[in-house]
């Protein structure tokens, strides 16, 4: 049985490494489809009374909308029109008032973002992602042994990278809420790694004679219940947001859902398995233990 787990973990880790490499290639080749928050441009969400197909509505709109535009369906009778930033648009939003009355146009949300602020956001967002990864890694190094800390940090990187790759693969837009979701994933997916790491530490100290591989198996087995329950309650609530929260939260909910599934996976197959490859052993914890013992002995 232990052997089976050992094998499963090793193959899971290899699978993750392959997936990370694949993601890197995918992101580098296709690039993210950045949302309006980052590229700038005009987005108009609106409602009409006629039930039209995308093509039919596009034909209706073409004479009125200046420059190029992209149309997307948000739900029954609700649409989104995106006008990328273009030069020489005199009145980019004039169509909102010029459209014939029989469409029954009602503007729900109209946004304009300058291209310049978008570029700043990309920089800031990337920086935030980097800073939080770094801060969390630092915390881990202080709190755990470096092998566990390194593995947990790599697991985080793995989660973020694969989630971004998922967005590239599906062709979903990457906007500001998705970035927020990525940061939340960093926080949450670490939970799993920490709980398992804590258990590993506890068991390694308690049973110094056991081979580390067995100890990790034991730690995983005893935390598996918690991992599954927490992940499933969280995923259920995220599914509720996805289903009922409206179109503007779809990207956010999708990112969180994928991120948490990946986080659960990586806490088992990356952050719990990698330390063993890096040579974690009882000796790594012995120093600390004797220190403590000495302290205890020194006390009257």
């Amino acid at each position: 049985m232990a052997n089976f787990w050992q094998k499963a973990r090793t193959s899971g880790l290899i699978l993750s490494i392959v997936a990370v490499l694949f993601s890197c290639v995918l992101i580098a080749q296709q690039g993210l489809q950045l949302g309006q928050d980052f590229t700038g441009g005009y987005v108009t969400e609106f409602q009409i009374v006629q039930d039209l197909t995308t093509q039919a509505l596009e034909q209706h709109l073409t004479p009125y909308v200046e420059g190029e535009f992209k149309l997307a369906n948000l739900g029954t009778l609700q649409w989104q029109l995106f006008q990328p930033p273009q030069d020489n648009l005199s009145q980019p939003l004039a169509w909102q008032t010029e459209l014939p009355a029989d469409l029954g146009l009602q503007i729900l949300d109209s946004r304009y973002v300058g291209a310049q602020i978008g570029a700043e956001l990309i920089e800031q967002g990337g920086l935030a992602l980097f800073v939080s990864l770094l801060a969390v890694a630092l915390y881990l190094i202080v709190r755990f042994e470096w092998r566990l800390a390194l593995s947990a940090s790599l697991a985080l990187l793995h989660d973020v990278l694969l989630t971004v790759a998922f967005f590239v693969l599906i062709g979903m837009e990457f906007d500001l809420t998705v970035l927020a979701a990525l940061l939340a994933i960093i926080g949450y997916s670490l939970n799993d790694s920490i709980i398992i790491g804590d258990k590993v530490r506890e068991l390694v100290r308690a049973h110094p004679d056991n081979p580390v591989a067995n100890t990790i198996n034991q730690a995983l087995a005893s935390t598996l219940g918690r991992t599954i329950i927490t992940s499933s309650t969280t995923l259920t609530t995220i599914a509720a947001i996805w289903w009922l929260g409206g179109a503007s939260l779809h990207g956010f909910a999708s990112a969180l859902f994928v991120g948490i599934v990946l986080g659960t996976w990586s806490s088992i197959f990356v952050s719990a398995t990698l330390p063993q490859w890096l040579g974690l052993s009882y000796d790594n914890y012995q120093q600390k233990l004797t220190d403590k013992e000495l302290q205890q002995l020194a006390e009257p």
Partner: protein
Amino acid sequence: MFAKTPSTRSFWQVRLKRICVAAIILVLALCAMPNFYQNKTLLSISPVTNEQALPSNDLVKQVLEQHQFTVAQINSNDTTLVELSRQNYSASAQQLLAQTFGERASVKVIEQATAPFWLQKLGLSPIKLGLDLNGGVLFVLKVDTNKALEKRMENIALEAQAIRVKEQLHGVRIEQNTIQGLQLVATPQGKAGLEQLQNKLLKQYPHLDVQTQQQGNLTRATLSYTEAGQAEFDKQTMLQALTTLRSRIEELGITEAVTQRQGANYIRIELPGVQDPTAAKRIIGATAQLSFHALQDQGGKQVKAEYGTVNLNPLAIFSGADIDSAQAGRDEYGKPLVQLSLSPQGGNKMLHFSRDNVGKPMATLYSEYIADSNDEIQQSSKVISVATIQQVLGQKFSITNLDSWQKAQDLALLLRAGSLDAPLTIVTERTIGPSLGEQNISSGFQALALGLSLTLAFMLFWYRKLGFIACIALFANLICLIGLMSLLPGVVLTLPGIAGLVLTIGMAVDTNVIIFERIKEERKQGSSMTCALVRGYRQAQSSIVDANLTTMITAVVLMSIGYGPIKGFAITLALGIITSMFCGVVVSAQLSQWFYRLNSMTTKGVQHG
């Protein structure tokens, strides 16, 4: 005797702890209460001056209903209060009423709390709703501080020139004026004059820095802003922009607006309830400035006027900053004008100037920043009037010859609200319709209800008795979180914020799950229930703190970069972590001790009986 003392102390400690926990939950529940009473949005119509009569209720109602607004309630006292049946449309109704009755009454959109009096008296209010839940207009403006600095350096050069002429400083030359600095060159004879000039300028502009160089027999002094001086200048420019924008928005009659600094160079303005951004945009983005100049026969600054061009003395007699109040009006021929009243200093300047120049012309220069076709911001100036000074002028006078009534009104408003030295550009603009806000609220809370009930059902099914405790703790968590959000100023609920709330609920059970799994393990190893409870809670604590701290780190990072909706999410997340740690560890520990002590007592009783 000696053995008893610690046990009584711990008994009191336990009791004290229990009381504290209960008190915290009660206080937060009280804070959460006003959320059951959402604020009402009303239109308030009040007379401009005391003598003027208000339009009658029937007239107001008639005007509103002609434009498809349905009136739910209308009350008249000193001021008329109108409640619309669809309150989200209050802002557009305000515009309509202001247009109709603008000359005799001032119309404002106000918020009225509906909570019971004793709750209001405690100073408690419901959570503020963000724009995406309320509908409204958002602007993000970039403040071009570099342009303002350029302008400031230009002014310093003009000032230097004026001082040089006035004090008759020979042998001093003013050279090369850029944003990097102003260069003054002096011959050996002019050295004393140079120092005099320097000192005068330094006194007037305290953040300037001087560097003196000797080039042969010439002395070259460079006046420039140091990095710290520049930072101070930027800070002041931003502050001025913020204050000016705030008072402009106040002038527009929007009381619930949020105007805050975003990052180093941006200002974020949220106008809840407003539906038509054009009027607000015209006022907010305007950089109009007025200044008054003497005319010159030759040289100076050539500026376009109504007929041909005029030569102005580039140094203004006084500028918009000296204006105390401004009111639009009409002259005897019905042409629009703006009546100005100057501050005492401005009045003094005007007095001196007009006394020396009776019979000579004075020009009113109107300048504003306009983005040209290359998106470069340029200052465009125009002389709107050249008038002969008939008499000595004091603090009060008027600017005539304005194109339209609208222009006169806008100009008066801008002058009242204070001027802007830095040009503003709108980098983000968003209009959220009221129906989308309603839709967002209902979908957000549906998601919350579904997420909460599924989680509760699962915990009850899986852990039975312990699950019941988890459910109570979860409810306490939700109440605490809402209470905390209402209590803290500056917390705004947005749609991503509601998503954060839902997520917190999903994650909050984690704390309980970690503890309950520990307890199960302890039970398997043969401990008694009471013992397992104590050990379970104690051992799980370090893991719980670790796990939540890391999430907290990312929430804080998110809070520092995000604005608007994202900030809403980050705040809910951070507060959610605090409340779920409190409820998951402290509250549920109290609950389970209480629950199982009662239980064990009754079973003991049964066994004994």
